[in-house]
């Protein structure tokens, strides 16, 4: 009951404040219009008589080209992930980056791998997980920082911009029939052969708490990947 009263009161406050801001914005053009009208009236009094010949020249409308922003990176990666207790396995994923400034970028990642077999399973022929439960899927939302921007030179005539960056974020891993809160951190190297193409080398650790092997503990899952992205 109390929360409904809170909702009602806060909605009135929010709508009232928003209404004020809307009216405030609309007041400016009106003031400008009044000033223009006064200026027109003053100029009418001193205006010369209308000319007899009206110019028949059509005004050209020049379309100003827009500037194309190119801050979004979209691409894919492939590499190896060491799923703790379940061996090193191939991993692949897609990544979406937005470059907030020349220093910072935000990143969203979705990746997939498949866990192997623990040493216990290999020795005893007992299966801890089903095939479906061995699927290792994850996503991350991260913030990156271009720590060492620079240039890469190939031969005498080719220079490419590059950056060594550090990155960290939060996300979730689905593995062994459970969904786990995950912290990811790592570093990477980005090189741009052209303005629209970037190549990446990344190393990250995905850390989550799990009891899949009987004891709840932090699981470190290191992955190393190479990838390519296209700037939009």
């Amino acid at each position: 009951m109390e929360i409904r009263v809170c909702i009602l009161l806060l909605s009135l406050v929010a709508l009232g404040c928003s209404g004020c801001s809307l009216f405030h914005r609309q007041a400016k053009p009106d003031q400008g219009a009044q000033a223009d009208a006064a200026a027109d009236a003053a100029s009418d009094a001193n205006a010369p008589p209308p000319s007899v010949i009206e110019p028949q020249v059509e005004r050209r409308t020049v379309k100003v080209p827009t500037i194309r922003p190119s801050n979004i990176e979209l691409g894919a990666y492939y590499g190896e992930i060491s799923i703790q207790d379940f061996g090193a396995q191939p991993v692949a994923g897609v990544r979406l980056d937005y470059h907030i400034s020349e220093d910072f970028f935000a990143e969203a990642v979705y990746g997939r791998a498949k866990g192997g077999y623990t040493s216990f399973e290999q020795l005893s022929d007992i299966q801890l997980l089903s095939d479906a439960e061995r699927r290792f899927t994850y996503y991350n939302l991260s913030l990156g920082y271009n720590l060492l921007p620079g240039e890469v030179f190939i031969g005498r005539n080719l220079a490419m911009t590059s950056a060594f960056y550090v990155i960290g974020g939060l996300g979730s891993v689905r593995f062994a029939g459970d969904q786990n809160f995950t912290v990811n951190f790592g570093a990477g190297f980005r090189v741009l052969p052209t303005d629209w193409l970037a190549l990446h080398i990344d190393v990250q650790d995905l850390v989550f708490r799990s009891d899949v092997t009987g004891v709840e503990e932090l699981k470190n899952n290191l992955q190393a990947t190479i990838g390519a992205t296209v700037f939009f």
Partner: protein
Amino acid sequence: MLALAAAVPAGARDHLQLFVSQPYLELHTGPGRGYPVAQVVARGEAVDVLMRRTEWFKVRTERGVEGWAYERDMLGTTLADGTPFTINLGDRAGFASHRWESGAFGGAYAGATLISAYQALSLTDNLKIELSASQYLGNLSNGYLIDFGFAHVFMPNWRLSPFVTLGGGYERVEPKATLAQPVSSSNQTAYVGLGVRYYLGRRLFLRGELRGHEVFTSQNSNEVKNEWKFGFAFFY
């Protein structure tokens, strides 16, 4: 080639043409403050703007040389009709008045760990429409939240600006298999909240928020679930 380019009328150009009105315009080899200056464009010369990446503009001079110019240096240029070139800089003024913002958060929802992201569209400097998607991971259940509502920022030009939120959404609850009868459920929700934004620099700011959710369940009484989250956001 240059003769052909000069013959193209101004109204049919593919790229925006600007004229340097300051003594010179520096062109760097890359889009960053550390890249060396490789070219200088003199006053009165024209450049074509090819693209923009963060605070940097890639331009091409009349001689066909390409380089990157810093956005504040580009303010010292004019359009073909002589009017100054203006752009939206990612600064405090942009923090107060912008079109879009996005962000990512960590936090808690009813005791469960929360991961959340949001997208907002500014109707005015004060009023925004927000859409947020969240996943929560708890000991007994996991789930998802989709929220849609309004945010009112009281003092958008302050570095530390408070705001209130109001809206509704949808909650998906997926109990863990360890429970006796795990049954997934979906419920509508309404929320009210308050928070603060803190401008860090450039287009980046911090954002923290508390929300109270009223979950409309199929049982006799509704549930009240509290949420807090904190993270980074950026505007554009």
